[in-house]
């Protein structure tokens, strides 16, 4: 139990550092909803090493904490939608068990961007931003893939020390 607490704290801090780095790039190339999704690296990693429930807890905690540290309350509500939908999508893809960490990470990236776009569309009450959809899907694939490479490869080494 103590080990689990320490481990979760470590993973949460990794996620928070990645959130901070991400907050330095607020609007990626001016497309709303487009994110690098760096914290998702830590979430995917946790999912694979320690299970889904731990990953979900870390995911929610990192949104709340990073929201208070680097953002505002509105930002928390905004990104929690994206994160939860993306998490759900990743969970489904992982449960299907046909894909490796790459497939799961790419799904997470794509659904995160799509969810954020829909939230943005709802808030500004314009359908105009649906124009960004193709770019957001493509962006999600690229960032999700890169996250998958990092999470997959660091996972091999972290597994030895964190278990």
């Amino acid at each position, binding site marked *: 139990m103590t080990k689990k607490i320490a481990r979760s704290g470590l993973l949460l801090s990794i996620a928070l550092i990645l959130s901070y780095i991400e907050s330095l790039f607020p609007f990626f190339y001016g497309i709303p909803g487009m994110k690098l999704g760096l914290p998702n690296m830590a979430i995917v990693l946790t999912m694979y090493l320690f299970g889904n429930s731990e990953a979900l807890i870390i995911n929610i905690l990192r949104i709340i904490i*990073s929201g208070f540290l680097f*953002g505002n309350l509105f*930002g928390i509500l905004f990104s929690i939608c*994206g994160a939860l939908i993306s998490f759900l999508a990743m969970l489904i893809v992982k449960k299907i068990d*046909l894909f*490796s960490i*790459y497939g799961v990470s790419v799904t997470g990236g794509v659904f995160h961007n799509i969810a954020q776009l829909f939230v943005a569309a709802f808030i500004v009450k314009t359908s105009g931003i649906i*124009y960004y959809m*193709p770019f957001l899907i493509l962006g999600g694939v690229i960032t999700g893939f890169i996250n998958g490479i990092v999470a997959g490869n660091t996972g091999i080494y972290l597994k030895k020390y964190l278990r």
Partner: protein
Amino acid sequence: MRIIKNDIVLISIFIIVSIVSFVVVFASASFGSRVIVSINGTTMYELDLSEDIEIDIDSEYGHNKLVIEDGECFLSDADCPDGLCIKQGKISKNGQSIICLPNKLVLTIKGEDETEIDTIAR
């Protein structure tokens, strides 16, 4: 960690969806309702695309003739040396623009519900 065949299939599906949505979105781009005329960055006129009109736009940079016809907007005449703005043709869809560089003139089509997004997602 090695990528497996199923991942490549999944990624390909996403990329295909992205390309298809790109085609769909831009083929069905909505028609704008207004044209914004700006000279050297300042908005001079905002005209309704639904009314047919012909106006002369004169400024210190030169002269252009703007025509709105059947919900489409174009420049029919200009004194700029290259005449590229006339060749840019008719515009009617949201976000399209005609730019006359020598006369510093920009026409942009805007929709009804244009709202800027000023919140930052984290």
